[in-house]
Every structure is written in C-alpha cells, then in structure tokens.
C-alpha cells in the first residue's frame, strides 16, 4: 500500500506539482512582471483611475492561484471546475474594477478639476465573451470526463 502511494506520488502528484509550479511562475511573469516592466516607471499614480500596481498584483494572485490549481487537478472534473470558477472570477473582477465598463477619473490640475470618463464596454464585452468560451470549454471537458467514466468497463 505504501509502495502504491509512493508510485502515485512520484508518477502523478510530483509531475503535477512541478507543472503547477512552472505554470504559476510563468503566469506571474506574464501577468505581473511583464506588464510592470512595460509600463513607464514615471507613470504618476494620480493620473491612473486606480492603484494599478496593487490591482495588477490582485489579478496576478487570482491568475497564479487558478493556474496552479488547474495544473494540480488537470484532466479531472475538479480541474474543469476550477477553470469555470476562474472564468467567472475574472469576469467579476473586471466588472468591479471597471465599474461596469465606465472608468471614471478625477485629475486635479492647478485651480480646477478634470473629470475623465472612458467607456470600455467593448473591451469588457470581449473579456466576458472570451471567458464565456472558457466556461463552455471547461463544461464540455467535464462532460467528456464524466461520459468516459460512465462508459468505462472495469474488467478487474
């Protein structure tokens, strides 16, 4: 029994943990490190509609968590569940962050205040669309796994 568990850990758990770690690191690089490196250093926080560093960090935490969880439970119903949850969390995150697609910003300039409103509804709809595709993909994946299991014949 102990030997079986060791094999399971070495053949299944360890590769998945490794994959999860690599995917987590890659996601961190792409989602957090790379955008911060591309953004100009002298970008003043006052001209941004939000504290972009902390928001980017929050998004990176969400992305890394789901990337690691997705790898740990890859090709399982739970993994697809995490995929659906990731899509829904990202949609909710962008909806809240963008105030429903209307970014508003108040910039004080000398004696007066400049109010800026940017309607990013189209970009938000694209993000929602891509995440709905992800939900559909994960649902189909989960249904596929459940269908295979229900039609498997156990000869032992």
């Amino acid at each position, binding site marked *: 029994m102990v030997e079986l568990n060791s094999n399971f850990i070495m053949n299944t758990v360890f590769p998945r943990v490794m994959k999860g770690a690599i995917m987590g690191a890659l996601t961190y690089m792409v989602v957090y490190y790379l955008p911060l490196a591309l953004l100009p250093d002298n970008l003043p926080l006052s001209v941004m509609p939000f504290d972009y560093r902390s928001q980017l960090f929050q998004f990176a935490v969400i992305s890394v968590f789901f990337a690691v969880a997705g790898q740990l439970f890859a090709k399982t119903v739970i993994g697809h569940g995490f995929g659906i949850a990731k899509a829904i969390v990202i949609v909710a995150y962008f909806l809240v962050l963008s105030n429903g697609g209307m970014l508003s910003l108040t910039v004080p300039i000398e004696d007066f205040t*400049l109010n800026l*409103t940017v309607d990013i509804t189209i970009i938000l709809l*694209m*993000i929602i669309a891509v995440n709905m*595709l992800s939900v*559909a*993909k994960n649902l*189909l994946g989960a249904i596929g796994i459940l269908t295979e299991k229900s039609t498997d014949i156990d000869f032992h």
Partner: protein
Amino acid sequence: MKIATSMLTVATIILWVVILFFSVTAVYSVMNVGVNIGEAKMLPTSNGIKFSLPFSINNNGYYEIADLNLTTRVTDPDGQVLDLTETLVNSIPQGETVNASHTIEVDLDDILSMNHLTLMLNDSNFTVKIFAGLNFARAVPVQLSTNVSLPWGAPFADFSVGTLSVSQHNSSHVEAAIPISFENHAIIDITGTLKMEAYSNSDRRVASGVTDINVASNQNFGDSIHLYARAQDASNIADGGKLHILFETYLFTVDWWEPYG
C-alpha cells in the same frame, strides 16, 4: 467532444490575443496623441466680446479619433445660461494633425435682454463648463469635463452719484450739476451718450441732460452731468428724488434708476 473543446481553446486564445493587441496598441496610441492648446484671446466684437481658444491635435497613434466634440456652457452666478457653443471635428485620421479653434461669443445685448443689469454694474464670475468628447478607434468613447471660473468686468462698476448742486443758468432755467463716477472694468471701451433725467419725489420729471462719454477699458470716469430745469422746479430738484440713467453705446443700451439727494 475533443474537437469542440480544441476549437473553443483556439477561439479563446485568438480572442485573448485580439484583446491584448488592442489594449496595448490603444494605450500606446493615446500616449502618442499630442494636444496643443494655443493662447486664449479675448477680443471685443461689434456686438460684445469674443473668447477664442485655438488648439491642435496631432494623432500619431494607430487609431482614428472620431467625433471630437468640444462644448462650452457659460452661466452667470445664478446659473442662467449665457452661451452654449459647440465645436465639432468629425475625424482625425491616424498620422494627421487637425487645427481648430473654439470661439465663444458673448453678446452684450443678449445679456441685457436677459435683465442682467447687475452684470453691467457689478463685477462677477461666470462659470464655464467645458465638455469634450471623442470616440477613440470608433470603439472607446472618452469624455472630459471641467468647470472654469471666468472673471467678468462690469462696464459701469462702482457707479456712484454724488451730491447735487443747483445754480442759476439763465432767467428761466436753473442748472443742476450731478457728479457721477464709475470704473470701466470691461475689456471694451465705453463710447456713447449718457442721458440723465431727474424725477421729483412726486414722480414728475423736472430736469434732464445729455453728455457724451468715452471711457477706455480699465479706466475711471468721473465728471459732473449738467441737467437743466425750469426755474420754478429748482426746489423740486434740490429736494431729491430719483434719476433715470440711460447709457446708449454702439454695442448696447442700458438704463436704470438711482436715488439722489
């Protein structure tokens, strides 16, 4: 099932690439849009004052800027709209520069017709609400708005009537000299005639006089206006009453009542 899943994966990747590409190029484009605002000019016109603000937009980004709309609304301290002006630029294509000018014309006759006598006699502040809207890449509408306070200089600021003195003009008439003073805080020169009529306490017109005035912008006026009345009305003038003051200039006509005596 696997084909459908693979196709959805491909579609998801393509959409993410499109979103990222558009977002990155849009941010880059916005950073490469140059807006130059020229010196605002305030000029007198045949019927009032004109504010002109020249500006140019240099679109060095990847996307067209469409439906640029600059609107200004001038309101008096009571919130009444004095002017609403709109400047439209239909399109600023990629790589092009557009020069435009936003001009606000304030018609003094309009101000007077709205019974804004206080604006002629007292300095004030107008509120200019500025709205700017544009459609970036015909996909992302952007709106800017701000409030600016604009000082208004009254043409007859600090108007005051001094003490009247009556003297004999000839055998049938007396002459009443009324010192008046005001400061022309407006950017326009006041050139025209000042007609003054004195009414007794019983609302009877007892004297009148006319004089030419020419007061440059930001200059003071101080002089005595001579009114003539019949000799028997000398006591009525000296007892006090009210003055009907009528300014007629080539830009506007304004009249009001002032007590004297």
